[in-house]
Every structure is written in structure tokens, then in C-alpha cells.
């Protein structure tokens, strides 16, 4: 599986992606001295490191989630030098503040892309193509069955669905990860249809993001004090963990939708018993994954998170040097949730 070469600029170790020359780790899953963090999702941003470096727009959420940590920020494109290695962060288009980390040493360039997508969603800083020799890529949706439609079409569907529910005096209940997906949805809802209510886990992130000067539509935190009839015709935005929870029971009559790349699969849709599955993802689909890899010009590709072995095999057939790297986390899955335990308990 892991074919680490000790001369590689970036190596996969039991703690994370390591740059030996600079002795820093990218998205380490075990505590290290110096960590560079691509973005605030729990499988990339872990607690316990001595120091953190992240982009200025990703930092507030990372701090909010990890609490009292030593965090320095960096601007996109800003270069820093550590023991002869040049590091810079470049937009990954995944969520607000998410970065690919470019690492250059003696003319060789590696890019650890974290999670990314090519489509400009109008909310996250749009993906920037970074030419490199070696590209570390996710493969969360690395199969040809995953093919995203432009988000405008998806949001059209979502708003049409909400509008219909609103006429029928139903509660429109939609789920998406509380960090990233939720704000992307908010940014695209047609607020003329009705009010938007939010689950605590979503609203907490909203507050952090508003505080950094980013505009989001008005939302109302769901509380016990709100009479259930107030939700009728309006929309409730919640993390996936809220599905079929006791918390959800107060919304009725209800129409449930899930916004996720996994909604591509009919089986997943049926298993979740969602009325509507909206195929909306913050990861690259098959065609964009291949496009990104091609355009980086990388001759070497390291595949993490997702269909690693399958996708690696495919890349090799395409004539690239590719291998699958094991990480502590296998990334998103159909049943995953980004809401931390603490956040769930807070609600």
C-alpha cells in the first residue's frame, strides 16, 4: 500500500503527512509539534498539536472547534520558508478558507490538496490550479458514477421543493454538514420563500463565520421556546446526525431532503428514507478529479480518502506513477457526519 521513499519531500507516516526537511506535518492525525491544516473538518484538523498554521479565513472555525490552541494564520499565496522549504497555501474550493498546501524544495514541487472541488460555489475561495511534480489527492468520489450537475441546477431543485412544501404548509427539512455545506446551502436559498431555522451545530458555525465578516442570510436558531406551528412553510437546516433524531420529531408535517454527493446512489437515498436526495458535494466528481490531476501536470499522484486502490489502479493505467496512501481516516462515507460529539451534546 504505502510506498514511502525516504527521499520524498512529503511522506506518509503514522502521524500524518510529514515534510522531513522542515519537520512539519500536514493535517496530522496524531499530535505533533508543527501542524499545517488545510481546513477545519474533523478528519483534517485534530486536537493536540503544539502549533497550528492555517489560512486566515479557515482559522476562526478551527479555533472554535479545537478551543485553546496556538494558531498562526497565513494569507493565500503568502510564502514562508522553513529550513529551505518554501510553503504556500492556495484555495482548494472545498469550504471557506480551505487550502491546498504547496511545498517546494530545490525546484521540486509537491501539493497536498486536502479536500477540494473545482466548481466555484460562490462561497468558498475558488480552487486555484497549482502546477506540481507530485499531487496528493483525495478520491472521496473517485468513480465514474459520480458526476455533479452545476450547483445552480441543484439549488433550483432545492428552492422549487421548498416552495412546494411551503404551499403545502409543510416543514422543509434539509441536512448538510454543519461546516461548509450548510453555509453553501444558506448562501443559495431563496429567502423570499420563508424563514430559515437552524440546528444549533449549524448556527454555531454560522456565528463564527458571520463574525469574520462573511455575509449569510438571516437564520433563527431552533429552540424549545418556538411553537412548532412556526416552522410550517419554513425551512430547517440541520446536520446529518439530526436525521430521525428525537430533536427532529417536532417538525411535522415534514418533507426531508439530504444534500450530499452520496445522494447519487439510489440505495443510499432509500436507506436514509429521504424524500429528496440532492446531489451536492464539496468534493470533486470523477471528471473534475481527472481534470485536476491532468492540469497540475503532476507525474506522481498519491491517492488518499475514498476509493484509493481503485483510483490508483486507474491512474497507473493512464501512465502515471500513482500509489494509495493509508491515512488514519478514510474520509467521508454515506453515513458520516462532521458534527463533533461535543456539538451534538450542546444542542
Amino acid at each position: 500500500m504505502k510506498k514511502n521513499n525516504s527521499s520524498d519531500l512529503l511522506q506518509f507516516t503514522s502521524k500524518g503527512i510529514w515534510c522531513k526537511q522542515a519537520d512539519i506535518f500536514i493535517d496530522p492525525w496524531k499530535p505533533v509539534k508543527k501542524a499545517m491544516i488545510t481546513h477545519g473538518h474533523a478528519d483534517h484538523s485534530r486536537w493536540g498539536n503544539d502549533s497550528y498554521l492555517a489560512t486566515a479565513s479557515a482559522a476562526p472555525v478551527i479555533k472554535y472547534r479545537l478551543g485553546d490552541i496556538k494558531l498562526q494564520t497565513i494569507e493565500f499565496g503568502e510564502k514562508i520558508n522553513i529550513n529551505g522549504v518554501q510553503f504556500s497555501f492556495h484555495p482548494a474550493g472545498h469550504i471557506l478558507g480551505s487550502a491546498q498546501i504547496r511545498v517546494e524544495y530545490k525546484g521540486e514541487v509537491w501539493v497536498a490538496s486536502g479536500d477540494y472541488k473545482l466548481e466555484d460555489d460562490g462561497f468558498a475561495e475558488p480552487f486555484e490550479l497549482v502546477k506540481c511534480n507530485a499531487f496528493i489527492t483525495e478520491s472521496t468520489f473517485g468513480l465514474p458514477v459520480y458526476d455533479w450537475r452545476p450547483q445552480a441546477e441543484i439549488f433550483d431543485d432545492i428552492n422549487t421543493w421548498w416552495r412546494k412544501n411551503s404551499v403545502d404548509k409543510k416543514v422543509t427539512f434539509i441536512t448538510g454538514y454543519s461546516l461548509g455545506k450548510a453555509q453553501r446551502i444558506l448562501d443559495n436559498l431563496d429567502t423570499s420563500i420563508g424563514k430559515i431555522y437552524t440546528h444549533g451545530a449549524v448556527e454555531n458555525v454560522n456565528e463564527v463565520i458571520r463574525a469574520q465578516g462573511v455575509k449569510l442570510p438571516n437564520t433563527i436558531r431552533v429552540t424549545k421556546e418556538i411553537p412548532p406551528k412556526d416552522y410550517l412553510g419554513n425551512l430547517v437546516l440541520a446536520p446529518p446526525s439530526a436525521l430521525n433524531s428525537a430533536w427532529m420529531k417536532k417538525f411535522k408535517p415534514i418533507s426531508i431532503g439530504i444534500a450530499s454527493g452520496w445522494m447519487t446512489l439510489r440505495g443510499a437515498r432509500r436507506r436514509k428514507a429521504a424524500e429528496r436526495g440532492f446531489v451536492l458535494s464539496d468534493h470533486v466528481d470523477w471528471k473534475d478529479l481527472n481534470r485536476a490531476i491532468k492540469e497540475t501536470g503532476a507525474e506522481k499522484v498519491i491517492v488518499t480518502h475514498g476509493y484509493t486502490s481503485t483510483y490508483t489502479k486507474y491512474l497507473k493505467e493512464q501512465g502515471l506513477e500513482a500509489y494509495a496512501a493509508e491515512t488514519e481516516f478514510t474520509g467521508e462515507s454515506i453515513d458520516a457526519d462532521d458534527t463533533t460529539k461535543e456539538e451534538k451534546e450542546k444542542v
Partner: protein
Amino acid sequence: MKNFAYLFTQLDQTTKTLKKVAALVDYFGKVEDKDRMWAMAILSHRRPKRTVKTSLMRQWAAELANVPLWLFEESYHVVGDLAETIALVLPPPSMEHNKTLTEWIEVVKSLNKKEDEYKKEVVINAWAGMTYNERFVFNKLITGGFRVGVSQKLMMRALSQYEGQEEKSIAHRLMGNWTPDTTTYEELIRSENPLDDISRPYPFYLAYALEGEPEKLGSPNDWQIERKWDGIRGQLIVREGNLFVWSRGEELVTDKFPEYHPLADLLPDGTVIDGEILPFRDGKPLSFNILQTRIGRKNITKKILGAAPVILMAYDLLEHEGKDLRTTPLQERRRLLEKILEENNTDGIIILSEVLEFKNWESAAAERENSRQHLSEGLMVKKQDSEYRSGRKKGDWWKWKIEPLTIDAVMLYAQQGHGRRANLYTDYTFAVWDDENLVPFTKAYSGLTDKEFNKITAWVRKNTKEKFGPVRSVNPELVFEIAFEGINVSSRHKSGVALRFPRMLRWRTDKKAKEANTLEDLKKMLELYG
């Protein structure tokens, strides 16, 4: 086709029966008779004969998607449905077709026995003018397996609403051997006399499992109690000198059971008997395994007939002298059944199911415990005055099965499921200990909750030893209690045993792998119950 694809989307988007029925009624009202007829056929598993091999469809889809075939296959493992996988990988449509469902079915049928190249041209052209949902439905027409969460019951309810006919009458009309090619909608649904098809069976009445104590049923005297036999439920029809045998799966199986053929002459016309197709020799039933050896065979040879002879264990009489008896009380139907079998010598082909008499439920329960000795699955409890209803209904008939046999086993392999279980590891292979070795002896894939499957799936991902396509071998750590109805010798399995209807009773999180049962334990069960 657009209407049918829309119907499919509507059905797929809801789990509420009311909405499903409404979507069906809406569809029935929108389309022509012929399309309505085909939709009914498809929803009652009467799809047209397969004219294109799925292996070809996979190739063409991979080619159009510009991906290697192996990658298409990997994707299929993940998606868990071939028609869906194809629809997902195809490039966007380049034109728009406007054919009806019937017209597309004609296209599919016209491909029979054509050259592969011609088939390819037609199918690719079809795909090129269809949306995602149309493609999915079209692929399903070819591959079959149309599971859209619409039971036949719902379809009948919708049709009865649409036609303003009683559901029972619709159910009966929809039984039998019709296809849209041989029957029109008028003939099937609106003709005066639905019995003009002499092969048409009555819908089977199915019992629910009795839960809790039988005492709540009142006095055992109000109930007819029989053994529950482990064969294939069947309906035997003699009309106008012809014999028809239907299995519960609504399959006409007359040709598969030549033993019954003399009954066409031995029984009076207008006789319909409900019973069990049961392997039987020397006055005793044989194990279901033996029957299994002849199901699915195309040619029933003398050898098979000798090895797996069947009789009909008669339970009930549904038609007598051409008259539908279903609303006649059971005790009267039983009396007539006894009379017919007394007056007409059936040469031992039909055996009357014995009615057991009990003073109280305690003695019935004691007899139920003896079921395995009789190679029976337990008892059937039917209300003396019950009508013969259609489908699975609660209240009048109960099956009171014996508790299953159980054994604790270790999970060795896991495989992803299909349909709504796609992407979850739900199909497992289990093993028991033979000294220090684990010997696989059965597979099982039902009995756990979605939550448990989620947990186990996460566990499987972390504990995979090796991957073989969709199958993973896992660290032998998890223990499950496996329940099964019977055990038999098998030369095909390494363990030497084959289980009947194995399923997971529960996940024994309290047990370590070492504490699972042994092959020795299984063999003891085989001696006792095999």
C-alpha cells in the same frame, strides 16, 4: 416512457403508501390502455423476455463512459444495481426520444436473436435520447429486477381505485398467465367473466406468525390446527379436463410436477385445492433440500422423480363444482375437501392434511415441540369459520412455528449488499471452530438493524485482511448467533452441512471469537435433526 419514468421517480421519492397509490392512479389515468397494461405487467414481475445480455450492456456502457470495463465493474459493486450504474456513467443525452413505454418494450423485444452489433446500435441510440430516469427505467426493462417499493398489493389498490372495482376482484383478475401480448386491458380488467381463463388461480391467503401466547385466541375448539409443512405452497386446478399447478410465487409449475398429471382425470372439473407441494416417500415427508434438487431443473428425468418424489398435502378447497368457495367458512370447505378426496381416489397423489385435536393450548404447544420429528415446521392455526382471504392478512390464520435452531459463529467474510443496502457490508460468511481452524459453513444477510449494519460496516473497513472484488476477508473477531430452520448433509460445503433459511438472530458483542461453537456442535445437531 416519460410518464413511466416520472411515475418511477414519484414512487421512489416516498415511503408513504398513500402517495404511492396516488402516483399510480395518476399514471393509470394519464396513459393509454396498452401502456397501463405494461406498467401493471412490470409491477407484477411480468417483464418481457431478456433479449440483451447484461455483459454486453456493461461493455457498451463502459465504452461510452470511456472507462475500462474493470472500473465499470468496481463501480457496479459500489452502486449495487446494474441498471443504475449504467444510467450513472453514460454521457449526457444528445437528443430526445418520445416513444411510449409500449413502443420501447417493442424495441427491446425486437432485439431477440439479432446480431450483437445491431443490438448495440439500437441500445446506444436509445440511451442517447433519454434522461437519467428514462435510462434507468429502460435498462430495468432489459435487466429485470424492477424493485420500486411497490408491492403488488399497492398496484392492485391503485387499479381498484382507478377502475372503481373491488380490490379482491382486481387481485383475482391479475392472477394467472396473462401478458400484455396475449391479453388486452379490456379483457383482463373489464370483461364480465374473469374466469374465462381456465388456468387462473385464486390469490393465496397467507398467514402471519403468531406472536405471544396462543391463549389469547380463545378456545382451541374454535380453531383448526394442522401441521405446517416445509415444501412449496401450491394451488392445484382442474378445469375442463385440464390440470394447472401454481406455486405461491404465481409461477405456473404444472410441467415441473408430472406426478400430478393423472389428477386431470382423477378429480372432477371445477376443483381447486390449496396445499403444499411436498417431497414424500414411504408415508413420510422428506427434507426440503430434496425438493430443492428438482426446482429449477428444466428436464424432470426419471432419476429425479425417483430421488425426489412429491405429493400434494391438501389444506383447503377453494373451488367446488366450478363454484368459488372462498367466502364459505373453513369448516364447510374442509368438509367438502374431505368428501372430494373420499369420493375420488387420487392414487396417493393427494394426502389430506391431518387436523389435530387438542383439549387445550398446552397440549397443542407440547405437540408443536415435536414438530421436528415429523419434519414439520410447527403448527398452522386457522379459525374454523374463516373465509379464504387474499394476501397476507392478520386475524384468522396464524403460523405457529417452532423456535429455530441456533449456533454461535464467527464472521469470516463480508460483502456489500445491493439496493438500499448498497455500500453497506451486509452479507456475511460464518465459520465454526474445528480445533484451531475456522470452517465456513453458512452465509447470512438478514436479521440485523440498519444501525448494526452501519456499525459492522465501519468495523469491516477497519478490519479488512484481504479484498477479493466485492468480498473482504476480515479479522475473525465478531460473533453472531445464527438461527436456522433445519440442517442437512451437504457434499458441496466444506463443513459438510447445509442450513435451511439461516439468518442472524443477534450480534453477540458479549462473546469473543474463541467462545463460538464448533463443527462438532454442528454435527451433533445434524445427527439430532438432519
